[in-house]
């Protein structure tokens, strides 16, 4: 779906290698549910998401954050083949979960912000650019089975 230089591949692996999925996943998903409250519509069975504190303390939100980040791991490990890697996940989100695909971009942007907060100045503009290219490809692959 996209061409990756060796430098880009190693940047993405390096960034991902420093991300603790169990920490960042819950932070990112929780932040999406707080900053874009309409996304809560997809998580009706998760229990109390009525306040920011409830969301960040909700164990189901945390568990699902880890699931989502775990799926990103597949993309990092299959960078030459992201479209095929996400074919069935895209179909599930399109045909069973009925998730508006705009949400993929929203989650990608919030994940970028959470990673930036963790890395600080080490998340340079150049590293951000490469990371966001990766996010764009992941979002496109997740959207690919919607039509």
């Amino acid at each position, binding site marked *: 779906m996209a061409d990756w230089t060796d430098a880009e591949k190693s940047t993405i692996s390096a960034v991902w290698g420093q991300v603790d999925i169990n920490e960042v996943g819950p932070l990112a998903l*929780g932040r999406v549910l*707080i*900053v874009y409250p309409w996304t809560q519509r997809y998580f009706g069975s998760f229990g109390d998401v009525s306040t*920011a504190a409830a969301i*960040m303390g909700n164990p189901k939100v945390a568990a699902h954050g880890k699931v989502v980040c775990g799926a990103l791991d597949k993309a990092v490990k299959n960078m030459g083949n992201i479209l095929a890697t996400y074919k069935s996940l895209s179909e599930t989100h399109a045909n069973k979960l009925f998730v508006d695909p705009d949400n993929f971009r929203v989650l990608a942007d919030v994940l970028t912000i*959470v990673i*930036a*907060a963790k890395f600080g100045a080490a998340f340079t503009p150049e590293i*951000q650019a490469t990371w966001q290219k990766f996010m764009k490809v992941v979002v496109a692959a997740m959207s690919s089975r919607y039509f």
Partner: protein
Amino acid sequence: MSLTAKDKSVVKAFWGKVSGKADVVGAEALGRMLTAYPQTKTYFSKWADLSPGSDPVKKHGAVIMGAIGNAVGLMDNLVGGLSALSDLHAFTLRVDPGNFKILSHNILVTLAIHFPRDFTPEVHIAVDKFLAALSAALADKYR
């Protein structure tokens, strides 16, 4: 999605912390936008150097952030307060208003980097709403 009284007070309080570093934040956000979203370079084609940290980027980043800082004081009437800037962007600069969202995202990334503890989810939503309202006001005169 209009700004509530709580949004406005959260933004004002947070901007109290940001304003000391406003120039740095503005320069960095602009540099990040030009690097991560190269299509935005089209609006700055007259500059000799579009890299992060270059003189024109630093100077213009400070100008942008200064205007945003002013807008914090104009939250009760963003459309009126930004009318002249809207004319400028619409008819002179002719910036596609889709780019306001892109710059807003890079401002949020920069704020998260410089204020990791203060940029909580509650601050994030208020600042995101403020930047969206500002962007709408900036696009108000386009047609």
